[in-house]
């Protein structure tokens, strides 16, 4: 099928690069079609999956899509809704019907106020990119304490790692609680020193997202700083 095969699944492409000339493959995300040919629309890595050519972006802004878990910040409150900043070009209203509490009209500020951080899920996005978020699901809640760091949303998959391996390692070795939002916000809670180490590890992943053996290097770093092992004795040492 794949004519220009060249094992090219990890090729860097730039806007306007030809991805498929023969109409063999369908245009996936980050691509566009002109005169029956598929071209890259943005800087990214070419990937072919089940007859679709996609460009996995290397940068850009987070654009919400339904089902994403995100970390939001309340920026405004209304009598029956909160306005949540989800680190995207679009603000996301959270309606009182979409929170796990019973909120009387005009009583929104008692539950969450401007500046609060919360874990939410994108409920829906319409074609003009009007977003709605929900907290009515297992595990979604207001985040108390802890810290939030921001990274580029395109680096989120690397921070999580294959099957959650990377984030699991950071959690175990620094003994912190971590949430990674799809919008590039990461919430961490635990011992302040360990949080600092975890943030450094995350920044390291973000800066070196495109390099090999990253998991081992992050592990080396964490081993070097987390000498006084957490008393709970995680087996990862």
């Amino acid at each position, binding site marked *: 099928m794949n004519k220009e095969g060249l094992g090219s699944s990890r090729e860097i492409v730039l806007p306007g690069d030809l991805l498929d000339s023969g109409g063999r493959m369908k245009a996936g995300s980050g691509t566009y079609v002109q005169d029956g040919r598929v071209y890259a629309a943005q800087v990214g890595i070419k990937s072919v999956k089940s007859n679709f050519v996609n460009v996995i972006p290397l940068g850009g802004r987070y654009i919400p899509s339904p089902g994403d878990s995100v970390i939001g910040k309340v920026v405004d409150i209304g009598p029956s809704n909160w306005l949540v900043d989800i680190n995207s070009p*679009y603000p996301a209203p959270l309606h009182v019907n979409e929170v796990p509490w019973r909120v009387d009209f005009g009583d929104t500020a008692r539950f969450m106020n401007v500046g609060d951080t919360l874990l939410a899920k994108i409920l829906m996005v319409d074609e003009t990119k009007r977003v709605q978020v929900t907290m009515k699901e297992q595990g979604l809640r207001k985040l108390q304490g802890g810290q939030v760091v921001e990274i580029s949303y395109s680096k989120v998959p690397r921070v999580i790692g294959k099957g959650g391996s990377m984030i699991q390692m950071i959690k175990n070795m620094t003994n912190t609680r971590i949430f990674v939002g799809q919008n590039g916000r990461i919430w961490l809670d635990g011992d302040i020193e360990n949080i600092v180490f975890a943030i450094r590890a995350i920044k390291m992943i973000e800066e070196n997202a495109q390099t090999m053996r990253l998991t081992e290097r992050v592990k080396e770093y964490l081993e070097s700083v987390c000498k006084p092992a957490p008393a709970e004795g995680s087996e990862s040492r």
Partner: protein
Amino acid sequence: MQARTGRGFGIKVMTMGGNSNVKLISDDGIRVDGRKVDELRPIRIEAGVLKRADGSAYVEFGKNKVLAAVYGPRECHPRHMQNPAKAIIQCKYNMIAFSVNDRKRPGPDRRSVEISKIISEAFEYVVFTENFPRTSIDVYIEVLQANAGTRCAGLTAASVALADAGIPMKDLVPAVAVGKVNDQVVLDLQKEEDNFGQADLPIAIIPRTGEVLLLQMDGHMTRAEFDQAIEMGVGACKRIYDLQKDALARRYSVEKSEEDQLEEAPAETQEG
């Protein structure tokens, strides 16, 4: 460039603009700065030079030095300017006070408003603005040093910065100016040629399709000269296009060693 400069030109720079009897091209077809008529100035393009902007680029066209930064797509302010169907591109071209010999009075003027407008419009055709309704993409072009052809250098830089910001677009946009000096069509005018030449014709194209995104003309040319100028400009744009691609490739080359997991991570964010 080597010591070819200034040899036997006898420049009499005293007239104020317009055409004059200044000899800008020697009899053997060498220009004031030692270039041939169809030669570009040395071009340098660097992508991702600013850390705080979403995307950025630095471009040198000979003595022109231009910095471009891109923010967005982001929420559009003022609100009445937002378009429910697509993103708007707001470009701001600015010449820094020290970019020219006499201090340039800071702030927008007739010329920079015009250039901002035409560059925005050029990009609205290449960027997939319909992907980001109600937002604005802000492009800032700062001319640090000017030596003619800054709108082309600015457009070239802004296009690399847009790509660097991860904004989806049809293609990169190269731009170059062609002009007429001493009755000859010459490529990529520099300051003296621009000031004392007979015509200036900046052009920006989509290299793959040859579509024209920007075309202005100041001065006079015959139809034959115009056709020749377009041909020369399109050819040069393709060379600049290669440099743009090269700059982006260098910026992201570390990422070539990319090996393991970049596949879609599990959507749920597990608690520790």
